[in-house]
């Protein structure tokens, strides 16, 4: 076998990730007009929950020093600013926000990366992930997260208290599978509608300036 150029394949997206992307877009679109008032308490709770459940990862992140990582999902209407250091925090910001480093990619890919389900280097090689700014911060963050077994459903399931103990995960996953198969039928119109709302909000924002 001589040197070979391999066929480029986009990352696989599960039905669950598709739904999570739609939910995140919807949430951010509806929350944006209210500023951070609606969403910030949720983000604070998410960070404190993760810190409590994964102290080793947060310890490694703290070793990176005080820095801001802009997590920029290319298919969401806004970005997230993750502050690492002694008091980590997460905020919704505009994607033009200046930060120590920036990571940009599809929301589903970023979630896969967070959970360690996909290889960040492979995403970078295939140009599905873009890195700018302080590369050391990005590499350190990736390694700190990858050393831990994060699971969004498990980690945030506890936020729902007794409801989390209900055997909902399997039926919800099955539902997600069905919805994923019917993506074009069910979700595509919703996404188009969402884009219309986003454009309308964008025009309103432009009008204010």
């Amino acid at each position, binding site marked *: *076998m001589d040197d*070979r150029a391999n066929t480029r394949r986009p990352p696989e997206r599960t039905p669950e990730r598709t739904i999570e992307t739609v939910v995140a877009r919807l949430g951010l679109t509806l929350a944006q007009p209210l500023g951070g008032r609606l969403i910030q308490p949720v983000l604070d709770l998410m960070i404190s929950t993760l810190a409590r459940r994964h102290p080793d990862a947060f310890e490694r992140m703290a070793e990176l020093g005080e820095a801001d990582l802009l997590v920029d999902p290319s298919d969401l209407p806004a970005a997230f600013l993750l502050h690492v250091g002694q008091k980590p925090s997460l905020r919704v910001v505009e994607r033009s926000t200046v930060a120590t480093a920036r990571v940009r990619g599809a929301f589903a890919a970023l979630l896969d990366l967070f959970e360690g*389900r996909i290889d960040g280097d492979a995403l970078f090689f295939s140009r599905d992930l873009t890195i*700018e700014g302080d590369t050391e911060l990005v590499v350190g963050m990736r390694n700190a997260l990858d050393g831990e077994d994060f699971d969004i459903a498990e980690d945030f399931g506890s936020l729902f208290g007794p409801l989390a103990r209900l055997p909902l995960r399997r039926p919800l996953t099955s539902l997600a599978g069905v919805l994923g198969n019917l993506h074009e039928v069910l979700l595509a119109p919703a996404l188009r509608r969402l884009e219309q709302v986003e454009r309308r909000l964008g025009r309103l924002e432009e009008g204010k300036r």
Partner: protein
Amino acid sequence: MASFELICPAGTLAALRAAVDAGADSVYVGFRDETNARNFPGLNFSRKELAQGVAYAHARGKQVFVAINTYPTAGNAGAWHRAVDDAADNGADAVILADLGLLDYAARSRPKLRLHLSVQASAANPEAIGLYRDAFGVRRVVLPRVLTINDIAKLTSEIDIDTEVFVFGGMCPMAEGRCSLSSYATGRSPNRNGVCSPASHVRYETRGSKLVSRLGAFTINTFDEEEPAGYPTLCKGRFTTHDKASYLFEEPTSLNALHLLPDLKAAGVKALKIEGRQRGKAYIAEVVSACRLALDRFDRGLPYDATVLDRVTEGGKDTAGAYGRAWR
């Protein structure tokens, strides 16, 4: 009996568990400092994590090796000596060393500890390997990635210790342990500080639709839109000479020698190594599983797919490297 022992990388405890679960026979790791050649921020093992990793592997009949394969600076070998002692005390099955002084320390102070010679020693002839065996009791040599299959077969027939070669992962085209390209560009040595192209000196810039990678003051590459990217190492840089941009040493590509299993077996190779302690646990799980499947099918005389790992390769390409190439 299996034809090869499969040696797999792990930069974190989660990656070690992934490697063991995916079919590694042995996992190699490093401490979180400059005593090993993958000293990346946030990567590698504390002493406590090594003990946990060893317990996990041993409970499943697998081994853990500790790479302590950088070169101490003169008069400053304390961290390297402690690494050898802590590896032994935490149950490591072998240490992978390169420095003569450190081999001497390990052989004298830990006579029961199994010693492997790191690829960082670039030992590529029977006289050198014989010296490491006779002087320090080295039991296995990891061969440099610059040898052809014929070189490996000849060398293996002339020595009486195990040989281990890289089968998949990063493709370093240089004489390892002796390359100064990254040192020249950054002032930090892969062989002393443990990191080639340190992230602290790497910058990626987006210029229109192009991606520019830089290392220190040097532009390493400019990738067109949709063109697969690679690591920012000088040996895989694309440089312009006489108005023509080209790769001087090697293209962004990964080593893939899975299709050479029959040749490697005929050459007498004992162990196959996967590169990539700096890669994530998803990569480890995928690559180890694929290699395990290939080795198992090879041992049963069944055909196997050597191209299954295409999507994780650097630059979207793979190569058999020096194993199957005539030098230009």
